[in-house]
């Protein structure tokens, strides 16, 4: 399974998953997942509902535990001990479908909390960092507001800034635009495109195929907990190899 070339590929990979399997009780949610993501690479992960996309990316920062195989992030082996989990989480930012901003903290405080409490930054430094990143997601003027006072698109941009405040090497996105009203999707995608241009390593679970075409180096298609197909976007969309991929693309592109 792991010949010399894949071993070499994993050695300088930013993220590598080798033979990863995960079960929820008796149900196998991930089956022999092998992915290697180079530094700066952008991956779009898609597939039908329940195929295991969220589970896969949640294993990378150990929000879900995996039972078999190996995951490495930035060279750190993600074991099940607190120490390696902490080390990996410092390198990995995550953006959720439901934003998950902290309602009792202002936008600025949302962005300062983890740098202060998890990295031990001083208040001034954390605030400087937060304001700079809020600027970058074009929302600096909302810094003193509370999440409930923002639109969905603004909240998601704050969530992106909040994750970036930890200076992660990798960003994971789990359907970041699915909970948004259509008119707000673009502002979030634009923010993600900017981030991609700046060279961030990204794995995005999304069904925004325009985004995939524009940004992704590779599209990975999953079904029933396994990777079915993996190709650069041009090839993935024009010449899908598997029946399941074709069926999925038919459904998802037909919808638009």
């Amino acid at each position, binding site marked *: 399974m792991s010949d010399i070339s894949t071993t070499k590929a994993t050695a300088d990979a930013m993220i590598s998953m080798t033979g990863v399997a995960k079960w929820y009780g008796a149900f196998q949610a991930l089956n022999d997942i092998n992915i290697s993501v180079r530094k700066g690479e952008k991956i779009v992960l898609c597939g039908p509902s329940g195929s295991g996309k969220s589970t896969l990316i949640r294993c990378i920062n150990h929000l879900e535990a995996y039972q078999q195989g190996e995951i490495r992030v930035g060279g750190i082996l993600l074991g099940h001990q607190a120490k390696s989990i902490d080390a990996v989480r410092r390198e990995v930012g995550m953006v959720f479908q439901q934003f998950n901003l902290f309602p009792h903290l202002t936008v600025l405080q949302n962005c300062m909390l*983890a740098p202060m409490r998890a990295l031990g930054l001083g208040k001034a430094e954390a605030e400087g960092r937060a304001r700079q990143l809020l600027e970058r997601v074009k929302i600096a003027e909302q810094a003193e507001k509370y999440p*409930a006072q923002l639109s969905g698109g603004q909240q998601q941009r704050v969530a992106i800034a909040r994750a970036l405040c*930890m200076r992660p090497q990798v960003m994971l996105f789990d359907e970041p635009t699915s909970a948004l009203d259509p008119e707000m999707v673009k502002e979030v995608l634009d923010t993600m495109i900017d981030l991609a241009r700046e060279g961030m390593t990204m794995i995005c679970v999304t069904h925004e195929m325009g985004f995939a075409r524009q940004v992704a180096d590779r599209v990975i298609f999953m079904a029933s907990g396994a990777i079915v197909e993996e190709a650069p976007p041009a090839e993935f969309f024009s010449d899908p190899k598997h029946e399941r991929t074709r069926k999925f693309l038919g459904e998802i592109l037909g919808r638009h």
Partner: protein
Amino acid sequence: MNYTLDFTPVIEGMPNLLTACLGTFMLAISGMLLATVIGIGGVVLRTSKIKLLRWLVIGFVELIRNTPFLVQIFFIYFALPLAGIRLDPTPTAIIALGINGGAYAIEIIRGGVQSISKGQMEAGLALGLHKAQVFRLIILKPALRAIFPSLTSQFVLLTLTTSIASAISAYELTSVSQRIESDSFRSFEVYFTVTAFYLVISWLMMRLFAFFSARYFAYPVK
């Protein structure tokens, strides 16, 4: 009916009654603080990885909620000395009120914690915070806000329950008024006044909670 109202003993006892009100207030506030600590601590232990701790909390809650407060306070007052712990009535009453209120607070606060979406915990963990930090910095405040009305009624109840501490002669309104009543036999006048005082105390407590809530939970929600 040929009863002439005579408030003279009440008026003469007024300074005593007013300081007794302060005693009641003090008992209630101390009891609530202890109950809050027990409530939050209990919720933390209730979600502990260690099964024994979880079961201890469940057992504690069941024990306290299914036995009368009067028995609890007698138990603490008369049983602890057997174990070599001798406490005055007032500290005993505070402990009893705190334990009793704490058992109810555990269940109420637990409901609040459960009402917070899992995404909050996940977002905190993904940001590199530890579970305990996430609980303290992210979950706790919105959870308390969610159940604050229930906690307020529970604590108003705790305030009224202080009157049971008269059974061990703790310094509070009911025991002082009992003394005035038994000296003067003016039962109606005394208890009429005491009823009014309790009403005012309850009302003040609710104002206090409303004030606290308005300050501490000032952030907007949708």
